[in-house]
Every structure is written in structure tokens, then in C-alpha cells.
């Protein structure tokens, strides 16, 4: 018999916090990202190569999560804003004050192109039974972030596995 509280189990599979990015996907983020890891792939630097291979410029797949990360401050928002609200909801609902992300997997679909306006939603996928690790006793949960472009096409899914716990 599952020990996951019914109100939390009811959230599994439900799309939450659907939002649209505050600005279009753009290249300076991508170039900064490539420069930081010395990624010289001409696909991201040479428009002729990008046009030949992918029908036009695309942004590095590894920049996907940039489009859902709010700045800590923006006009009209005085409080710190978090990127993965469902994760913080789980900590509060389960009364588990500490948490780590133990695994992050990204599946890429349609490429993100400069000018795309990316929307995203968070989906709680699972909650484990209580577990005890070196960190303490708590539960694992998995949250997916699903990204779509302005045409409704899926561009990627990020899957975060977290372990929320109370120090023993």
C-alpha cells in the first residue's frame, strides 16, 4: 500500500505552472554558452553551415533550460523567483526541508531556433516510498519540464530526480 499522501498522488501527471518565456530565444545566450565550454561547432557559429545542415540557425540543445529560468529580479517582481516550482512545492507538502537534485536527463526533440518563443510546463511524474540515504530519510520525486515552441511542437523534456530529506 502506497504511503504517498493522496493529495500529492493526485498531482502526478498533472501539468502545472504553464508559462511562456519572457523573451524570445536568442543567440547571445547561445554564444556565451558555447564560449564558456569552448564549443566551436560551426553549426552554432556559421550560418552557412547551419543552413546546410538544419535549414537555418539553431541554438545549442544544451541551452534548453535557459528559456525557463527567470531572473531573480525583474520589474514588478520583488520576490525571488524559482525555476522549478513543483520541486519546492514537494519540499513544503512533504515537510522535507532539505533536497538535492540527484539526476537530470534531457531529451531533445525539435531544435530551438533564434526568435522562438518557448512555453513550458512542469509535471510531477512520481514520488517514491520513504528512503534512507547518507543524507537522511526522505523521498525521491521526479519532475518533468516540457518545452514547446510557438507552433506547439515539443522541443525537449527535462527530467529532474530529486531527493527531499530531513537530516538524521
Amino acid at each position, binding site marked *: 500500500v502506497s504511503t504517498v499522501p493522496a493529495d500529492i498522488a493526485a498531482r502526478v501527471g498533472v501539468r502545472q505552472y504553464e508559462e511562456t518565456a519572457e523573451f524570445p530565444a536568442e543567440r547571445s545566450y547561445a554564444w556565451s554558452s558555447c564560449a564558456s*565550454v569552448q564549443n566551436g561547432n560551426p553549426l552554432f557559429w556559421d550560418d552557412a*553551415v547551419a543552413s546546410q545542415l538544419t535549414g537555418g540557425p539553431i541554438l545549442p*540543445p544544451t541551452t534548453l533550460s535557459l528559456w525557463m529560468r527567470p531572473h531573480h529580479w525583474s520589474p514588478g517582481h520583488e520576490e525571488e523567483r524559482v525555476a522549478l516550482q513543483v520541486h519546492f512545492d514537494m519540499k513544503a507538502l512533504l515537510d522535507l526541508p532539505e533536497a538535492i537534485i540527484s539526476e537530470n536527463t534531457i531529451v*531533445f526533440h525539435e*531544435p530551438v531556433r533564434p526568435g522562438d518563443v518557448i512555453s513550458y510546463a512542469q509535471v510531477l511524474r512520481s514520488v517514491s516510498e520513504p528512503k534512507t540515504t547518507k543524507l537522511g530519510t526522505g523521498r525521491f520525486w521526479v519532475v518533468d519540464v516540457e518545452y514547446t515552441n510557438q507552433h506547439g511542437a515539443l522541443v525537449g523534456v527535462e527530467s529532474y530526480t530529486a531527493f527531499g530529506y530531513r537530516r538524521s
Partner: protein
Amino acid sequence: LTGRYACYDVYGTADGRWVTVAAIEPRFWANLCRAVGLERWIDHQHDDDVQAEIRADLDAVFSTRRRDDWVAALAGADTCVAPVLTIPEVVADEQYAARGAFADTHHEAHGTFRQVSTVLAGTVGVRS
């Protein structure tokens, strides 16, 4: 995680390289302090008044040995210490290689180069 605490930072080593310290959990912080002879800071992990002193002590300690020596001594001892790899080291890392994280791709004008082995339309790659 924003640089406030010395227990979560990057420190230079004797060979000009770096290690990461991410000992957020008190027990792991205590393990690290004992392992490097800084027991006096065990109970001051979140004491704002002494973070600069702790950081200075850790800087001094880590600067005495090479990165890989520190990693060999500390990584397996629940201290949350790990090496900062250079880009060439990341690309050559056996763990990433085993997972097929990088691939060789060829372009007629740009030649053959390594890239993150995401499958992209039109690329000609060999996972390695």
C-alpha cells in the same frame, strides 16, 4: 549556493588547477575539516563572521598539494571534494566516453571535430 559559505566553493591547488568543495551537509563538512586539519571550523559552517577566515584557511591548505593528490585523498572520504576538469580533460574523461557523450563529426569545409554527441539532423557522426 551563491558564494556565501566557504563550504561551497572552488579552491586552487599547488599545480594551478582547482577542486570543488560542496560540503553542505554538516557531517560532510566535519569530515572535510578533520581531513585537512581544520577541526576548529567544524562548528562554524554557517557563521557569517568567520567565512573569510575559513576560506583563507582552505585556500592555504589546498594550495599545498596538487589537484589529483587532493582528489585521491578526499573524494572517497565523504568530503564532497571533486576535481575541476579542463575542457580537454572533460572530452577525454572515461566516464563521459563510456556514456558516449562526445562524437566526431565531419564537415566538408570545417573538417573533423568533436562535439557533444546530440544527434542533429544532417550531421555525420560516430559515437566514441
